[in-house]
């Protein structure tokens, strides 16, 4: 028996230059398999929302992906626009540079701003914390900020390979779980097979993201 269900998977499409038709195909496949969500760039939210309209599969939009190096006002604007285009969930890339620079006011401003806009519009908020770029202390600080400001789900990375010095492990899941009071944890890294999904779910992840989730 598999140690996970399709409802625990997030199919990501965070790849440069995917065509509309490709996104539509993957959405149809994800819906057919009962996958929880498909995550796309903001430019593809309308396309994905239309493709998934009559399904239970949700549309998630990235915000400031993959670098997170935008001013808070722009991230908030991107969130507003993505929801207007049909996003049911947003996935904000936290500004890792601001975390590392100790500029926590900026981190709080972007997270609070996105949570405020999204909650008002009934949208789920996920925050991507690029754990492989942070020390343990920085990661804990980032997780605490997101958790205390009402983020629904903490994601362990962006999965953008050039930033990925190492993959996400069970230890990252454990660190998030040990730090949060409210938020759930979604495992995201470079996961290319169903065994990793099983490992992450058994480590306590609420959901697992992969760019090949439909093939699990």
């Amino acid at each position: 028996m598999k140690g996970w269900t399709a409802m625990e998977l997030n199919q990501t499409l965070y790849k440069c230059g995917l065509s509309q038709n490709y996104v539509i195909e993957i959405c149809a496949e994800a819906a057919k398999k009962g996958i929880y969500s498909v995550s796309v760039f903001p430019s593809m939210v309308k396309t994905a929302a239309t493709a998934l309209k009559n399904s239970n599969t949700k549309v998630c939009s990235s915000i400031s992906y993959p670098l997170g190096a935008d001013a808070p006002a722009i991230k908030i604007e991107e969130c507003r626009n993505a929801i207007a285009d049909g996003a049911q969930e947003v996935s904000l890339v936290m500004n890792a540079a601001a975390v590392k620079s100790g500029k926590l006011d900026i981190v709080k401003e972007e997270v609070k701003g996105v949570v405020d806009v999204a909650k008002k519009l009934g949208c789920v908020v996920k925050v991507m914390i690029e754990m492989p770029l942070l020390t343990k202390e920085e990661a804990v600080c980032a997780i605490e900020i997101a958790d205390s400001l009402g983020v629904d789900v903490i994601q362990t990375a962006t999965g953008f390979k050039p930033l990925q010095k190492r993959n996400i492990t069970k230890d990252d899941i454990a660190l998030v779980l040990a730090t949060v009071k409210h938020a759930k944890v979604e495992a995201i890294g470079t996961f290319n097979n169903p065994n990793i999904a099983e490992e992450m779910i058994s480590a306590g992840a609420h959901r697992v993201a992969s760019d090949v989730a439909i093939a699990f």
Partner: protein
Amino acid sequence: MTTKVSRLDVERAIDASIGAAPAPTVEQVIEFAKSTIPYNFSALALEPFYIRFIAPFYHDAGKRICTVCNYPLGGMSNKTILAQEKQAIADGSDEIDCGINISAFMSGNYAEVAEDYQRVMETADGRIVKYLYFADLLTEYQQLKAVEIAVNLGVPFLKTNPGYGYTTTLENVRLIKENFGDAIKIMVSGGVRTTEGAIAMMEAGVERIATSSAFQIIAGFDKLN
């Protein structure tokens, strides 16, 4: 080795970026920016978040800042790109390197790509805009199509790639030069890390080089002479 392309030519062509560890701290970027001041680089390339910390002292030193929009994956919506661009200009960016709507392009929606980019040009309000078209992802036909859109819009510069593993070849440059001549200037980005590589690009007719190896490229001239 003798060459027509001088050290100063290359220096003046460079858009320098830090390219250290990902997510450099504000302190690291300030230090890097200060270290570029004695050079004749064309611009310092920054992600939007950093501009406000650098612009005041960098402009006082008479230097230029360039920002990346819809970067590095080209997946933002046009409405957000314009907000990002306006904010970058307000924060002190002198030039805008902006990615095209690459999914629309790959879907064959060329009119949408052009309309989106027209708004990017209008928002830049006369500032230099560099049209990032992800050459490394494209066939020759697609590269020519993408550049044709830029030429028709009157964009001053091409930016071939975002970096992050996307590399630009001399063939990419020659293709544009052969088909469009001097109708548009070229900035190469992605994979130019050596003095020899920079010279070869300049000889092929590029006007600018975006690189995270600026100091290394310039230092290499000492060994050529």
